[in-house]
Each structure stands twice: as C-alpha cells, then as structure tokens.
C-alpha cells in the first residue's frame, strides 16, 4: 500500500511569479515532504523508547559488573562475554534451544501445510474448521503446559499408560534429553501449527485456480498438486512462516519453565534449559551484567538466523520470478 501522499496537480503558474514561494506553497512543500514522517513517528518514537534504547542500554549493562542492589557498577569490558562463552551451561542451553526449535518447527511446518491444503478445497462449515485451527493458539500457554505435563507424566501420564498397556516400559519424559525435548516440542506444535496453517491457507487462496484446473486436466493427484503447484507458488509465505517460527523458537521460555515445575535450571542436568531460561536463571540471581550479556548473545543469534533466512528468501524469490 502506498504511504506517500498522492501527487497533486501542479499549481497554476503565474506569470513572473515562478520563483516566489508564498507561505501557502511553503506549507504545501512541508506537508508533502515531512508529514509522512510525522505519521510514522509515533511508532518509531515508541520503538526507540521501548526497543532501541533497551537494546543499547542492555549492551552498556553487559559491559559492567552489575547487580541490582549494589550502587556501584564497575566497568569490566568484555569480561562477562568471555565468561559466558567459556560457560558450558550456555552452550548446553544453545544446543537445547536449537534442538527444541528444530524438533518443533519441521513437523509443525509440514503439518500446517497439510492442514492448509485440506482446508483449501470446498468444504462444509469452512469457517468452523478455520476457527478451530486457531483455538489452541488462543489458549493460555500455562494451561497448555499444565495439561501436557500431565499427559507426559511418568507415573500417571496418558502416553505412558498407552505405552505400558502394550507391555513396554514407561518413559521418564522429563529426565532424558531427547524425551524432554520431544515433550516440549509437542506443546509448541500444539499451539502454533494451526496459526501457521491459517497464514499458509491465506497464501494458498491467492494461487490462481486455473493452475489447479490445468493440473487436474493433466491428471495430477491432489498430493502432486500440493507439491508441484501450491508449494512453489507460496514460497515467500513459507519463508515468512519459517522466519517467524525460528525467531519464536529462540525465545522458548514458558514451556520448559512450567514443564520443570518452575525449576529455573530446566531439569537436574539442565537437559531442557533453553537460552531464555538460562537468562532468567541468572537474572533471578540479580546478576544483571551477566544476564545482559546472555540476552545480547540471544540477540546476536537471532540476527544471524534472520540473516540466513533473508538470504534464502531472496534466492527463493529469485527462482519464481
């Protein structure tokens, strides 16, 4: 959508008065040049106050030995970052974050595609199904985790009940690295699959019908149509979904925190402590310098991932145009 004011017809020229700018002309010029900035200013002012400034200030804090209750903050340079990068718990949290992110994102994307594809054909009660897709997303994350923690319970959980009824040993979901990651990924998938499916569905509806008609005439099955027509046509949207879910997965916090019954270490062995949780653990010790360093590293990771995504998206766009 165009944000610039539409160009007006040039004012009628007065003989000899070409160079003389009246106050009215001047106001007009200011209006055209400056007011767009004024319109977007509220957002940028708020962004500076609540986005940009905290990011900068966090960097400043991260260069200090800084605990909240101490009045003195000693400048220590990059010491916090040095300690952080040498901290094996930090890399453990990074691994967990990536692992949970991948485990939740890949199946989620495929499932969302499939659901969107199903809903993209004439169905009875279409709106009902679409709203249903969004329901898990509007449920409070706390409620979701509480329910899933029950389902993944070791002694009385639904899943273990099924497993043991087939004669196998139950799984101590919380205690293993992989098993806890699977449990947490499931919670994330439950909440976000429908949401992503709706975004993909919106993109699918913009795909010209003729393409499907032509494909049908050529004898392509529904699955082939999804693979060969739909997916290539909605690539930019898929890229968008991937970017947002990757960034979201860098911030996984409530699920591991509540899954571990509010333990900040994410399990005895930190087997499911994510980066955000690692940050929160140190923040709760009021070690602000160190936790600022952690949040900056998370920021850097997100920048890297966004950068990679940007490059990939650009290539994708190139391939369809």
């Amino acid at each position: 959508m165009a944000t610039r004011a539409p160009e007006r017809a040039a004012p009628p020229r007065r003989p000899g008065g070409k160079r003389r700018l009246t106050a009215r002309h001047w106001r007009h010029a200011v209006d055209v040049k400056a007011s767009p900035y004024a319109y977007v200013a509220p957002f940028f002012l708020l962004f500076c106050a609540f986005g940009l400034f905290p990011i900068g200030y966090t960097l400043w804090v991260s260069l200090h030995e800084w605990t909240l209750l101490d009045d003195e903050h000693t400048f220590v340079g990059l010491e916090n970052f040095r300690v952080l990068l040498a901290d094996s718990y930090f890399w453990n949290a990074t691994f967990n974050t990536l692992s949970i992110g991948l485990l939740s994102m890949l199946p989620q994307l495929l499932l969302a595609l499939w659901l969107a594809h199903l809903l993209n054909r004439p169905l009875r009660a279409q709106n009902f199904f679409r709203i249903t897709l969004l329901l898990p997303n509007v449920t409070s994350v706390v409620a979701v985790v509480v329910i899933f923690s029950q389902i993944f319970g070791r002694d009385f959980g639904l899943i273990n009940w099924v497993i043991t009824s087939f004669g196998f040993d139950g799984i101590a979901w919380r205690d293993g690295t992989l098993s806890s990651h699977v449990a947490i990924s499931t919670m994330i998938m439950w909440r976000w699959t429908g949401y992503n499916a709706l975004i993909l569905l919106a993109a699918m509806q913009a795909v010209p019908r003729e393409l499907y008609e032509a494909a049908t005439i050529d004898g392509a099955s529904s699955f082939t149509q999804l693979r060969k027509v739909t997916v290539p046509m909605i690539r930019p949207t898929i890229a968008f979904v991937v970017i947002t879910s990757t960034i979201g997965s860098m911030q996984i916090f409530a699920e591991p925190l509540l899954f571990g019954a509010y333990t900040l270490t994410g399990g005895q062995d930190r087997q499911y402590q994510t980066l955000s949780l690692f940050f929160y653990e140190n923040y709760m010790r009021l070690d602000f310098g160190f936790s600022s360093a952690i949040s900056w590293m998370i920021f850097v990771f997100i920048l890297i991932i966004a950068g990679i995504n940007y490059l990939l998206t650009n290539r994708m766009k190139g391939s369809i145009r």
Partner: protein
Amino acid sequence: MSHPPRRRAARLLAPLIAASLLAAACGGGESTPAPGAASGGAAAPAEPVKLTVALFSDFHYGPLYEEFKKTHPNVEITERRAQFNDHHNNLVTQVATGAGAADIVAVEGGFIATFREVADKFHNLNDYGLNSRQSEYLDWKWQLGLSKDGSQLIGLGTDVGGLAMCYRPDLFKEAGLPTNRDEVSALWPTWEQYVETGKKFVAAGGKAAFTDGPGEHFRAMVEQAPVGFYDTSDKVVVGSNPDVRKAWDVAVSMIQNKLSGKLTAFTPEWTTGIAKGTFATMVCPAWKTGVIKDQKPGEGTWDIAAVPGGGGNQGGTHLLAPKQGKHPKEAAELINFLTSKESQLTLWKDASALPSLPALYEDPAVATFVNPYFGDAPIGKIFTDAAKALKPQYTGPKSGDVNVAMGNGLGRIELQGQDPEEAWKQAVADSEKIK
C-alpha cells in the same frame, strides 16, 4: 538469594489452602481480636497518614487493620498484593531505584537475606523502640530480621514454617511398621535411623517407594547443622563444611538403598502420587499439609510425625519498612501491631499462620489444636516443637540457589545415573560459582 521457585509457587498457594483447611476446624465466626498492642502511638493532634502495605497473598490482615484504626484514627491503610515472585522482584527494583515501594512490605524467608545485605535501604526499627520485642521471639526468627552486622533491626517476623515428617499409616502397616505417630516418631530420632527404617520398608517389598526424593531431606539436614552453605563472611563453604558432606552422604544412601520414588516436588507425578500412594513419607513444612489436602487423598490417609534430627523450619515472613516511606513512626507501629502476640494468635486462628512467638505455643488454641484430616494429629504442637528446636544458622545471601545446585546434583545421581562423586564435584563447583 532465592528459594527454589517451585516451592515459591507452592507457598503462594499454601496459605490459601491451609486457610480453608483450618477455617472449618476453627469453628467460624470472628475471634475477638485482643486490644491493640501498639496503643502508645495514638497521639491526639493526629494529621492524616496514608500507609500502604504490600503483600504476596492474602494474609488475612483485614480485621487487624480495623482494629489498628481504632487506636490510630488518622491512619488510612491500603493493601496491595502481587504474585509471590513478582512481589519480591518488584521490591528489589523499588529498593534499587528508590521509588515505588510500599510503606510496609512483606519479605519471605527465601528473600530476606537479599535485603539484609542492603539494610540501609530500610528504616531501622530500633529507632522506634521495637528492639524491646526481642525477648518474645524465637531466637533464629529474630536474627533473620537484623542487618548483617546485627546493628539494625529491619524487620519483625510474622509466621514460621515448622518442619515435620508426613507419612502414610496404610503403607506403613503393609510394610509391618508401626502406624501410631508417636511410635513412628520414635523410629527416627536421627536421619540415619530414618534411612534404616526405609530399608525395612523396602525389604517388605511393597510397590510404593519409601519417600518422594532426597532433595528436601538434604535441605532439612543442612539447616539443622550449626553451619550451613555459608560461613558468616558470606563465603560458600559447601565443599569444606563436613556437615554438608554428611547430609549429602545420607541423601546418597537414600538413593542407593532405593528409598526414593525419583520424584521432583510439584511435578504432576508427585502431586498425583500424594493421593495415589506412590510414596510413604515426605518432609513436611506446616504449609505442605495444605498441598496434601488439596490432592484429596482422603481423611486420615496421611499422618504427621516428628522430623528426624530435631526440628526445622521452611519459610515464614518478615514485615519491613523501606526507607522511602514517609511515615516511619506509623509504619513501625503498624508492624509492631501486626506481629503482636494478640495479632499472631488471631492469624493462627484465621489463616493458620504458625506464630513466631514461643509464648503462644503454650496457648491452648495452638497447643491442643488437632487436625482431623491428618488422623487428629496435634499439628499445632508438632510444628511449633520443630520451630522451637531449630538452632539459628547463618543464612548466606543466595542459599536458595546453592540448595538448587546441590539438589540438582542429587537428582542427577538418581535420574541420570551420574556417579555420586562426579555429582558432588559438579554440585560444589556450581555452588561456588553462585555469587
């Protein structure tokens, strides 16, 4: 310093649950609050004063405020409440930035050490004559309200969380152990004897575990020692304090003898296990009786015996007056009133908050109180005995975090099969990293 957060969540719920637990038994109706203790401050030419009180749950102070206003008609009291963690985090921010704190704030035992470090940010209640209360208090509770060097009084104690051992008579019977609470208490004067009892329980071959997990036991053992995780210069002494190592070894022997049900407190399998009987004993601060009842195991399913090793405490609150407050005199008077003998007795009746004034332990309302849900256990006596028996121990600024690090070590032995010596080394290293 902070408590293991899962316990925070529980303690948040506990007063509510405990309140409902006892409300019925106490036989409803207003207990007439005794005449105001702090009547001395009611001066005639009173200018209006507004006091705010910040709490982390319903302390049932409402009727007490009304009582206080009778002697201080010029004082207007507003109460604000926040969720347990938020309340304490906000307070840290408010104290650090010097703005926004209430006139009176509640600080729970897990956080009090943090604020003792910065005693100069709070009004010294000695200046308002409150040091006269010292003789009334449990010694260790009083000490917690002093600044680190002991020169200033920053807070007065409200309630305490005496420690006991909850157990299931039905499972004890199956294992051929005594079921009567006095006989059960006699089984384990020491933690070693507790482990021996556990071995007998396991040998009987029942399906249930003897106890939930070793973490709470370890913590109770450390808190019973003369020196805990810190020395008085705030150095973490986990690695060199023989008492910590002894507690660790007992906890490890609990794991190795398969006494433990491999349960982490407040996980779904733990809470469900309370009702389903997957474990037979657990360390029980007063507020945990509410957690048990909430799982509806049935009346008389759980009973309460004494904790091994003699006494203990978990939790309990202090009232502090931040220096930002403009009316220190009135705030001190209100603190004095809310923590007075009469108020604490009222709060025991209304909110089952265990008093921190030993004189009240002789009061029939406390001493003879029995709880039918726990087989008519005299919980007033059991929990106050435990609180009385506890010797004061110096708590360092982050003992809560150290306790989590150590508990995680025990958990790794039990759940991830880590070698006990490795786990010890890692836990000590983790503890010493906490600053």
